[in-house]
């Protein structure tokens, strides 16, 4: 499985939960803490993100940056484990 990661600008997030509804992996949820505006912000709650960018596409506040594992990096990591 391709692994991904998202970084959410939690001070911009308004907790609208659209990214949570859009995530096919159910990786996202709302935080327990609140931000300066008083909203519970979106956070990763499961380590199964695939970097599909659906959350970033529906985010109205452009708060989400998405990373995806490099293809060659995955092979390198596997080599490191076997070595």
């Amino acid at each position, binding site marked *: 499985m391709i692994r991904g990661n998202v970084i959410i600008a939690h001070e*911009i997030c308004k907790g609208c939960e659209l990214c949570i509804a859009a995530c096919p992996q159910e990786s996202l949820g709302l935080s327990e803490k609140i931000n300066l505006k008083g909203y519970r912000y979106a956070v990763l709650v499961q380590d199964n993100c695939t970097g599909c960018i659906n959350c970033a596409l529906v985010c109205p506040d452009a708060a989400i940056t998405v990373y995806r594992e490099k293809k060659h990096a995955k092979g390198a990591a596997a080599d490191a484990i076997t070595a």
Partner: protein
Amino acid sequence: MEIPPLTNGFELVYKKPRTLTETPMHYCPGCGHGVVHRVLMEVVDEMGIQDKTIGVAPVGCSVFAYDYMNVDMQEAAHGRASAAATGIKRVLPDRFVFSYQGDGDLAAIGTAETIHVVNRGENILMLFINNAVYGMTGGQMAPTTLLGMKTTTSPFGRESGLAGHPLKITNLLAQLPGAYYVTRQAVHTAAAVRKLKKAIQLGFQYQSLKKGTCFIEVVSNCPSGWKMTPTDSNKWLEENMLPMYPLGDLKTPARSMN
């Protein structure tokens, strides 16, 4: 559980477009305006036309659009964004000019300007955000409000005998010979956002052909005006708005050749 960011061995696949400013948007949580702003600026970024793009901001929720888009912007009087865009395009014909309006602005107070700009076939891109209520003033009935839909000025639902029928202005404009590309898109799912981006790309590309007006309607949600959570409003949009305002191209260049 908060997972710390892992950037080692990871590559960036999506980030906020450079042309969108750092100013936090004032829109309500879950509002479709933010998505349209971002997609519009992504296209400007990818085409590399930041210094050649001029936008015209409307009156309505998106009145501060010029604060969020880092391109040359002009604020227009209520309903007159397309008229202002006409002037800009005629003086500076090599620029990419777009107008950005809501349904109260484009389909109510600005109906005359809208119809005549498209009828003249001005070479501009018009974006029309349709959320079926007047968002900024507190959720009053708009020309595009669905029949039976409750708003603050139609508390028992819109009745056709009293308030007329929903105005499908995009279908109306597709009949005009000046229109070159007319389409209706939405922002309620990631797939819809991808399609909207392609439509906006076409809208900008067709401008350099000087063949007529490109008009893109975006069916959007209004969680505050509809008094729903953002997720519920997107479901409501799919069930109620889309049967009335079906998505897809209403006029494409191939068909307009006939």
